[in-house]
């Protein structure tokens, strides 16, 4: 279904392309070509996220009926796994990296034998992702994936502040849908709801999956309680109770008798996967498809509108030459407006430029502010203790706080960017434009959100030998000083007084040295924390700035093209209306007939476009496009 719908859209775009070529409007053609290329990539990403040990990997396995993601009683997944359609099974490991200057390098892709996947993505084979991979890509021939569905299994979140949490957040804006997985052992806990809340701000299509219903007799209560929590917190999301065990068991049954078939069917029904797959087909693929078709319809209708504008004005001028003057005046005024929009000094340009500048500085300030608070807190705790003992704890704390702050900052930046896009579009209101371009947040799939580790400052060993040396040095001074003074009193250089003074001085020098060492360690630790935070500000700040610049550029290009198109169409309309007025009676009659035929042809195209999305939606879109 999804495929045929897509095909119709592609056909429509092809038809419209022919029309724009025929009427010699290369500006409109290029726009349609872009639409066509967007249709060519049908992949729809679904992120499977949740706390660890909730059955995320098993869910993906049960969906595609193959053990693509390793499952274990202990924490299993350490690397995101992307599962997509392929003609033959394959496994590719992808490593995205940046050069020292922060420029993204092309991703390294390594194909490995399928049975070795577990070695790379599991916590046992690749603890803490020691191999520095970004993600693994698994291709597998499955009907469920053929429609462009891409499933992404992620490592357990373990709270918003953790590293995995930040990485998952970074991948969210590029996802088309999210499945939040938790098991039926308990209702939602606070960390899970916090995560859900943040996720919903980045990706609107979130569904909740409650797994392991085979194991917990009380799962209905849990589903009810969890749904209650969702509604109470203003996050109505669909909840799907499923049992991966039942589905995998049912798929394994090979009994072809009537009873066997019935049992298999019953197990399938009980597993709850029918509804979940239905959601993936309709709610995710279908919705992505709907969105595609909607935007195609909108594009084609806009093109029809532009093409028809010139002819319609010429037609009405040739039919009613008396009103032609008023018509031309109207058109000229409209053209003036379009001209204004086209100018570099147009109001929307100002809004966009100012807005983007404000946004960048706000976001940067927010990031700096958050980081400064962390840095101050860290310095305070360094002062309170000796970094020699507390460094490990401190490092974990700092990294957690930093990634939490960076995530919050990122979410805020995206929200503000979307808002800005809406503001700019407001300037075009009433000119038949309500479409916003697709905004692209973040470059890599999983690279944003991955921060460098905090480096431990090198600590000098202060051993016995050094202590002895320092002590001797101090002691020598004391010995000589007091020895000389007592020498005046006729004692030898080495007398009890001078030896005592030597020991005293030596001891003091060693204590001083130890104190100095501690102070140096504290200073070193502070520098390390500050450098880390500086690094993060630099890295995250650059990522965010890049993203915002990208957004600004996309918006500018989008709206500039739009203004150009409007201008061209209106100029043509004015010109043809004037031509019609100048022409004589007989030519006018013939021209009107031609024009009507042409307009009919364009109308057919518009009808097809409207048919693509159904009448109700078309009425909505048409109201804007053909006014």
């Amino acid at each position, binding site marked *: 279904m999804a495929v045929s719908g897509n095909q119709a859209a592609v056909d429509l775009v092809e038809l419209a392309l022919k029309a724009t070529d025929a009427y010699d409007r290369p500006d409109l053609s290029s726009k349609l070509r872009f639409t066509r290329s967007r249709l060519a990539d049908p992949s729809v990403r679904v992120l499977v996220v949740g*706390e*660890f*040990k909730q059955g995320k990997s098993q869910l993906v396995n049960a969906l595609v009926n193959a053990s693509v993601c390793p499952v274990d*009683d*202990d*924490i299993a997944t350490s690397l995101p796994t992307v599962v997509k359609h392929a003609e033959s099974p394959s496994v590719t490991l992808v490593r995205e990296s940046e050069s020292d200057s922060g420029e993204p390098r092309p991703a390294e892709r390594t194909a490995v034998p399928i049975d070795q996947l577990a070695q790379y993505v599991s916590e046992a084979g690749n603890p803490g992702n020691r191999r520095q991979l970004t993600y693994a890509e698994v291709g597998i021939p499955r009907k469920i994936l053929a429609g462009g569905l891409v499933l992404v299994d992620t490592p357990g979140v*373990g*709270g918003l*502040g*953790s590293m995995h949490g930040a990485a998952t957040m970074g991948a969210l804006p590029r996802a088309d849908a999210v499945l939040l997985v938790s098991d039926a*052992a*308990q*209702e*939602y*806990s*606070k*960390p899970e*709801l916090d995560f859900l809340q943040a996720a919903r701000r980045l990706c609107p299509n979130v569904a909740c999956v409650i797994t*392991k*219903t*085979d*194991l*917990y*007799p*009380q*799962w209905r*209560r*849990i589903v009810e*309680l969890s749904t209650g*929590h969702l509604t109470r917190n203003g996050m109505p999301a669909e909840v799907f109770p499923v*049992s991966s*065990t*039942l589905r995998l*068991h049912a798929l394994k049954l090979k009994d072809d008798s009537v009873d066997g078939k019935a*049992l298999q069917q019953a*197990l399938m029904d*009980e597993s709850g996967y029918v509804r979940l797959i239905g959601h993936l087909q309709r709610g995710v693929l279908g919705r992505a498809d709907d969105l595609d078709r909607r935007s195609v319809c909108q594009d084609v209708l806009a093109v029809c509108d532009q093409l028809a504008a010139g002819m319609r004005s010429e037609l009405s001028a040739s039919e009613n030459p008396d009103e032609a003057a008023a018509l031309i005046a109207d058109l000229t005024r409209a053209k003036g407006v379009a001209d204004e929009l086209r100018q570099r000094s147009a109001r929307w340009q100002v809004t966009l430029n100012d807005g983007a500048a404000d946004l960048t500085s706000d976001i940067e300030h927010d990031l700096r502010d958050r980081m400064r608070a962390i840095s101050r807190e860290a310095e305070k705790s360094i002062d309170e203790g000796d970094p020699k*003992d507390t460094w490990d704890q401190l490092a974990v704390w700092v990294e*957690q706080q930093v990634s939490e702050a960076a995530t919050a900052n990122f979410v805020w930046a995206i929200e503000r960017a979307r808002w800005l896009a809406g503001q700019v579009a407001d300037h075009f209101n009433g000119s038949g434009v309500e479409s916003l371009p697709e905004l692209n947040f973040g470059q890599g799939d999983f690279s944003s959100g991955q921060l460098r580790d905090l480096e431990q400052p090198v600590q000098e060993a202060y051993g*016995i030998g050094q202590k002895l040396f320092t002590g001797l040095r101090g002691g020598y001074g004391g010995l000589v000083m007091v020895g000389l003074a007592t020498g005046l009193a006729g004692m030898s250089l080495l007398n009890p007084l001078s030896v005592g003074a030597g020991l005293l001085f030596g001891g003091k020098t060693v204590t001083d040295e130890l104190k100095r060492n501690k102070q140096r360690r504290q200073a070193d630790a502070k520098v390390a924390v500050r450098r880390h935070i500086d690094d993060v500000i630099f890295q995250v700040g650059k990522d965010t700035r890049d993203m915002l610049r990208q957004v600004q550029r996309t918006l500018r290009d989008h709206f500039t093209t739009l203004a150009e198109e409007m201008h061209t169409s209106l100029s043509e309309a004015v010109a043809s209306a004037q031509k019609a007025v100048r022409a004589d009676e007989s030519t006018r009659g013939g021209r009107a007939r031609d024009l009507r035929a042409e307009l009919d042809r364009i109308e057919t195209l518009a009808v097809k476009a409207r048919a693509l999305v159904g009448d109700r939606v078309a009425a909505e879109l048409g109201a804007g496009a053909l006014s």
Partner: protein
Amino acid sequence: MSLTFGGSQLGTSVRGLLHNASQVYADSPGAHEWLRMHLARFDEPLRVAIAGKVKAGKSTLLNALVGEEIAPTDAGECTRVVTWYQDGPAPKVLLHPRGGPGVAPARPRQLSIHRRDGALSFDLGGTEPDRIDRLTVDWPSQSLRGTTLIDTPGIDSLSADVSARSHQFLAPSDEPTAADAVVYLMRHLHSGDVRFLESFHDRGVARATAVNTIAVLSRADEIGVGRLDALMSAKKIASRYRSDDKLRELCQTVVAVAGLLAQTGRTMRQTEFTALSELAKLARSDMDGLLLSADRFVTSDIGAESSASGTSIRTVLDSQVRAGLLDRFGLFGVRLGVTLIRQGLTDPTKLSAELVRRSGLDDLREVLNIQFTERRDLLKARSALLALDLVLRREPRPSAQPLAVQLERIMAGAHEFAELRLLTALRSGAVKLAKVDRLEAERLLGGEGGAASARLGLDPMAGPAELRGAALESLSKWRRRAESPLAGRGVADTARVVVRSCEGLLAGLPR
């Protein structure tokens, strides 16, 4: 034995100190009341709090430890108020209301007890949970005689004030905690768990410690998704956590326990055993089909046509009975019970003992015994000294000066505290020793139990001569280390404390 003797000696001196203090502070009603309370607490059973995240299985474990279903349990979040379970002559539930700022709390009021199917429930009588300081449940039980168990609301709860109540109880910011020791339940180690354990570690005088905390990997049967070998793999995970440096700093040890199985094992009824035996008679393939999912177990009607004996499962066990069975045993418990009966365990008492053994409850009880009960006096003394320290800091007065000196002397002088401090230091890695030496030092300091044989790493049945030999050997080894000029100060200090422990051991052995 010298150590228990030393313990009671410590108890006497701490008790004397508290007495003196309450006399000095006789004119300050607040402080006097506080000290009296702690003096009374000194003679009460050890207070063990059971804490953990929401739905970690705290109440279930409490029931398992007591051996009766006295703490209410539910599929949803259940415990919302801190509840104390203590031994008493007759069942009685008291509700202690919370006082407002500047308002003295109202008098405790008695609640009515309902009992359904052996499970207890009580009606709060319309009082809001946040108006309640705590509930105390008196219950005549052998298991509660030595320890008072305290059930706490889960942390990370969605209702923030429930979480806050737990935090307030276990890690109050301004007072020593009301619990002497904590059993911390977790399903998997989560960053929230670590944060909570860290905040439970008090600052204060005794500067302790991981010594009064035990972590439990709870709901162990669910870790392996209810497979028969689930508990084995849970134990493996527990042992991984045990060697995790971060957790070693925070708690004594990690034990895996299947709470539901333990609770049911200890309270199994004859009817349930009969039901399990009936299930064991089913053909294996039917049984597998039945145990595929919880829903199937309750509703399906396997056996009607396929079983040779012609008995349908429905005629033997109607679905209500099966639902009840599932509620009490869980899918894993049913599977295990049936398998055990098939293997020939046809005696209900033996079966229930085997279920309890497999659940890991015995391990937990042994650990509790070694870590908490044997150290009872020590933990009690520690709580009391913390309380006294608070009074001395809050209301300093010249006449209390000798008390502060005495407190300082006990803290610094009592060898038990020195052992405790050193144990914590060793566990947190503050003292650097080679791994083998560190483990040996921890053992000699009583990290694995206070008994002489446990400290020396010998069989509990070892004879006096053997114990003596081992103690002498350890003594001379650590004495050499203490006196070695090459040893760093930390190592030498450690060795000196260990030497004292060895000497104490030797003195306690019968000649």
